[in-house]
């Protein structure tokens, strides 16, 4: 990065990644301000694991002190509630499985926070994401690329970033391996160098998302039928919120062979299960499309697609693409295509964009 001195707001969660991102930018000579976003109250006033607890804010504050940069905590609770939490609850209500981190990035981090940064005369924000943003020398277009550390690549949750957001974002860690980040943190004397990564949804205690959703929408715990693909009733489920596509355990069925949840119909409050073969799909339909460059790849394009955060990208071809939705076919059938999750398309190391999975496609 050879930019002149920039004022940059670094989103600091108190974790090692965002801390080292801040340190790298300070080292490069930018005017860095650390900001921790307060996104939720914790539940019942109690703070818990996940992210941005009192301890995390303290960790971020200490790192900022070591780096000699100002640190603020900004209250984005309302925006987060509207954009992330409400969406989370309503998606489960539709029998879908949401990815709240994507909504947070889309509507809070790279939207509200970015505007706040502008209000503080910072034209850029920075995060500790393992992804790379590069600028095409000829066209001036911004490109979003996978992080070089394949095991930590976080480009999947960033697919909905647009050109303006990419232009205003720095991601210093994308060129590094995670192991290097911790080493660097240790060398800088940061006591958070060995702090474990947050694995949970930040606003749900103990990852008990079902309890959280039910506290907002109790009607989702109505028992209903579990059926097979022919419609035969096999048993009863505890409420659609407790299940996700591909789930095998906790169905309460005594079956001679393993069965998995193959679809969830919130309207009829029905869960469909079937053997592993019925979990396979030949393709998917994606809606709420977003393309990083601003234009869609043409039909017939051979790309790779990731259908969830910790799935590998697999070869796929765009069958058709419109403004509202697109259909893609996998080269090999894929398991557990889950409505509500994001489908992100890659061309090599580049993220082209993607959307929210509406349905799976079976071609036979």
């Amino acid at each position, binding site marked *: 990065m050879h930019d002149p001195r920039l004022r940059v707001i670094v989103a600091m969660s108190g974790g090692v990644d965002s801390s080292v991102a801040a340190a790298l930018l*300070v080292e490069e000579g930018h005017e860095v301000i650390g900001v921790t976003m307060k996104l939720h109250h914790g539940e019942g006033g109690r703070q818990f694991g996940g992210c941005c607890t009192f301890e995390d804010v303290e960790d971020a504050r200490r790192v900022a002190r070591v780096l*000699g*940069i100002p640190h*603020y905590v900004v209250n984005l609770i309302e925006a987060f509630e509207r954009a992330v939490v409400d969406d989370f609850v309503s998606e489960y209500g539709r029998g879908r499985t949401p990815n709240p981190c994507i909504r947070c990035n889309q509507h809070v981090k790279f939207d509200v926070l970015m505007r706040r940064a502008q*209000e503080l005369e910072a034209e850029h924000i920075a995060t500790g994401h393992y992804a790379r943003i590069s600028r095409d020398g000829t066209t001036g277009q911004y490109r979003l690329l996978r992080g070089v550390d394949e095991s930590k690549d976080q480009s999947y949750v960033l697919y909905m970033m647009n050109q303006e957001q990419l232009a205003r974002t720095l991601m210093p860690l994308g060129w590094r391996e995670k192991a290097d980040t911790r080493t660097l943190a240790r060398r800088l*004397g940061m006591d958070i160098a060995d702090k474990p990564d947050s694995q949970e949804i930040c606003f749900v205690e103990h990852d008990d998302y079902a309890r959280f959703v039910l506290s907002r929408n109790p009607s989702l715990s109505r028992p209903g039928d579990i059926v097979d693909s022919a419609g035969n009733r096999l048993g009863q489920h505890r409420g659609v919120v407790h299940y996700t596509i591909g789930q095998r355990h906790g169905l309460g069925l005594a079956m001679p062979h393993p069965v998995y949840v193959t679809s969830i119909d919130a309207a009829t409050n029905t869960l469909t299960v079937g053997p592993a073969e019925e979990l396979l799909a030949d393709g998917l339909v994606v809606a709420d499309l977003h393309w990083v460059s601003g234009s869609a790849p043409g039909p017939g394009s051979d790309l790779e697609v990731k259908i969830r955060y910790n799935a590998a990208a697999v070869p796929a071809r765009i069958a058709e693409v419109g403004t509202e939705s697109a259909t893609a076919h996998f080269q090999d059938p894929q398991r557990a295509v889950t409505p509500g999750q994001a489908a992100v398309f890659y061309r090599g190391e580049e993220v082209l964009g993607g959307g929210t999975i509406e349905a799976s496609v079976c071609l036979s």
Partner: protein
Amino acid sequence: MFWGDDCMRPSRQIYMDHAATTPVHPAVVEAMRPYFADRFGNPSSLHLFGREAKDTLETAREKVAALIGATPGEIVFTSGGTESDNFALVGAARANERRGRHVVTSVIEHHAVLETCVFLEELGFNVTRVPVDRDGFVDPDDVERALRPDTVLVSIMASNNEIGTLEPVAEIGVRLKERSIPFHCDAVQSAGAVSVNVEEMNADLLSLSAHKLYGPKGVGALYIRRGTRMKPLLHGGEQERARRAGTENLPGIVGFGVACEVARGDLTQTSHYVGQLRDRLIDGLTAAVEAVALNGHRTQRLPGNVNVSIKGCEGESLVLNLDLVGVAASTGSACSSGSLSPSHVLKALGLPQELEQSAIRLTLGRTNTEEEVDAVLEELPRIVSRLRSLGHHA
């Protein structure tokens, strides 16, 4: 270990958050000094160290009492305004439990009162929270209407820390006296800023905090009118006539005493001086910036308090921007993780949400100058202009 260049620290710092805390007066610092390493005795000890400490303690007590028109025996030292509020509410409620379990307060009290009321509810008490009008005034009639045969305590603040409104506590006190209902008044923001007199207010309990009147942090007092039934909050020793256990914070108390003495000595002049600065700031702002609304009453407000809603701006953003240019302000409600929470006081005024979210609070004190007010009158309009042009909250 610092290795950033810290050059973002502005060259000049203007402090306008006196409602949060105040700088300790130089006379207070001097007065406290001997009591750390020289005259460090425990006032409860029998030996010379203790006896001299006890004398010092009682001298300080006289000074605090004098500020509010009380007798020294009616002053109990605490660790600050929060403890005083907790002590007043829990102590009086539990002491009168057999007579009744109803408490009346207002919606705009400080969190130390409001949260303690929630605690009382957990103990089985009922709490009525009287509303306020658009300027934040509590209506004595509303308080009276809320009273029940089982009401054992009323708590209404003398002035509000966020919007500065001076409450009609004297009138409320008179009515409660007629009914023999104990009256607690949180005077944390009023003491040292305006006249506070427990006889005029007919207060039975009154909370004070040293660090709001140019004294040190960590010390305050609860005035308990002779004859008021109370149960202690802190158990353990017999200090403060067995009303509040714990070795007295003598350096802090000495400082508190001197701060009260200083305040009493020049209350009228200081009040006038700060009030003029406040008016200069309010008038200057409304002249320089369009669509600025003052929150609270224009004249019935604390001499240092300026709370305004600035259309098209986010309060938190204004505060951070001011901080980056060296001006310390607030939106009135700091939350524990260091961010700013929406103000329950502004909400209680019934303001439309955009006025709530665009509010900032500047509170002036005796060390501010006209030059500082003018500097803020330069910076703030510039910040507002820039934020408005971004159009994020149009």
